[in-house]
């Protein structure tokens, strides 16, 4: 019987090592070997087998000390190699989509602050988020708003306080920073779109690039996502509701992240559960297709549309209530 170790292939007879075919004593080669070596007919060591002794008795290493230090170097090298290779395009998409979420949170919080801050000066403006930031960046104080601007009249009769020049500069810089975040967000979104179309054309076609990317991010990769049952895909991102369900026997959540899909969002409430189920099933199919063929298969979307139309036509009205 042949068994494989990190330093060579051992031949056992009656549980005694009778021969050893040593590998090249080169850290790089041994590390590559750890990752992919496959020797026909050789097995991993059985329970209780001492792999250290033969390495010394067959003169692969001189003593325990050399065994320790060589194994360490090889393992570290192998680990580094594997890490540099696990950074597939998925990983970059995951980081980008998470960055998108982080920018959204940050831009929201800073916009709200801008709204409070600038609101001292011009409370009647009524803008928020990006519109507010662009406005403040462009105009600064109320007094700079040109006569032909739609906000000119509101500005002239505002109950807001004066904005001293030093503060105006500060607020404008703050607003400009927020505008850059929105620009940044836009570039990242475009890049996700491009990358998603390349690595997951079917998922992108069914779920849309952003929901698709978030699903990949939540599972840690396209391949893992493709292995999940569609009932899991349906509730992904509904973790709070799911947790509550487990803890308190509350009703199980009907839809998580995919709830933001236009097919569900734009449907009346009584059709949403059924559509979510259909959408999740097609998302799973799309992921598997992306992993196994990588080619865009328009039939999946056609199938989804058919299914959704049938749901809509068989459930035109809300269910009666007691």
């Amino acid at each position: 019987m042949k068994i494989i170790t990190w330093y060579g292939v051992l031949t056992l007879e009656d549980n005694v090592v009778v021969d050893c075919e040593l590998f090249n004593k080169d850290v790089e080669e041994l590390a590559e070997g750890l990752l992919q070596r496959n020797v026909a007919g050789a097995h991993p060591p059985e329970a209780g087998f001492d792999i250290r002794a033969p390495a010394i008795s067959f003169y692969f290493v001189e003593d325990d000390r050399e065994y320790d230090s060589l194994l360490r170097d090889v393992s570290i090298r192998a680990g580094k190699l594997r890490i540099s290779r696990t950074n597939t395009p998925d990983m970059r998409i995951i980081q980008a989509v998470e960055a998108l979420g982080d920018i959204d949170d940050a831009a929201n919080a800073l916009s709200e602050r801008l709204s409070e801050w600038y609101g001292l000066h011009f409370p009647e403006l009524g803008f928020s988020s990006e519109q507010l930031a662009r406005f403040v960046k462009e105009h600064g104080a109320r007094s700079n708003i040109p006569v032909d601007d739609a906000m000119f009249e509101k500005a002239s009769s505002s109950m807001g306080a004066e904005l001293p020049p030093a503060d105006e500069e500060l607020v404008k810089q703050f607003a400009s920073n927020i505008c850059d975040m929105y620009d940044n967000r836009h570039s990242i979104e475009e890049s996700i779109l491009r990358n998603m179309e390349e690595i997951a054309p079917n998922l992108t076609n069914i779920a849309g690039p952003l929901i698709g990317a978030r699903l990949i991010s939540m599972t840690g990769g396209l391949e893992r996502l493709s292995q999940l049952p569609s009932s899991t895909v349906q509730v992904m991102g509904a973790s709070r509701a799911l947790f509550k369900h487990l803890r308190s026997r509350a009703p199980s959540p009907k839809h998580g992240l995919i709830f933001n899909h236009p097919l569900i969002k734009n449907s009346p409430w009584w059709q949403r559960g059924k559509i979510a189920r259909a959408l999740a099933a097609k998302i799973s199919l799309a992921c598997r297709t992306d992993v196994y063929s990588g080619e865009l298969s328009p039939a999946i979307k056609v199938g989804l549309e058919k299914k959704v139309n049938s749901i809509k036509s068989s459930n035109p009205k809300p269910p009666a209530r007691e």
Partner: protein
Amino acid sequence: MAAKELSDGIFEVQKSGKRFIGTKNAVPGSAVYGERLVEAEGDEYRIWDARRSKLAAMVLKKMTIPIKRDSHVLYLGAASGTTVSHVSDIVTDGLVYAVEFSPRTMRELIQLCDTRPNIIPILADANHPASYAHIVEQVDVVFQDVAQPNQAQIASVNCGQFLKNEGHLLLSIKARSIDTVANPAKVFKEEVKKLEKEFDTKFQIIKKQDLAPFHEDHLGLIAQMVLR
């Protein structure tokens, strides 16, 4: 400032009227994860926070840690190496095989290995010991801290494969990973029963201890393998 050795390589250190546990820093002058460094009697110790380490919590819970200066340890669930680094301090003449599943976490663990000569990093799933049996030798101690539903089973298959006869298993059982809703005490009982009866390996339980308040719903367990 005084340091008292509680068991091989694990010290109780006094500083400004407070007592800490710590390990003698194998790489003096540098902290691994932001832990505090203190001097006592000419040696530098790394303060070991029981809220960040199940093993440190076991020490504070008066469990006698069977890791010796020259132990070879298989560590399952190494994470980014917070606790591994202390085990590395303890086994000055030994070795730690550190198994971790997540590549992201392994990235940090490997950076730790770069600075310490006695840690062997292994990126693998503890559910499949065959996948690292060509690297790991027979060890004196298996330490396991994984957040998976089949914790007792993972311990059993790894000890069966790698633990020397009469070697020790140090196990941290996380109730919430096994069952999010059940009563932790009941989960602990069932896991311990499994360890004692259900698998090919047989263990004699030496000590069990709830790790609260350092870790909620965690049981610390020390056992000796009596049969495989």
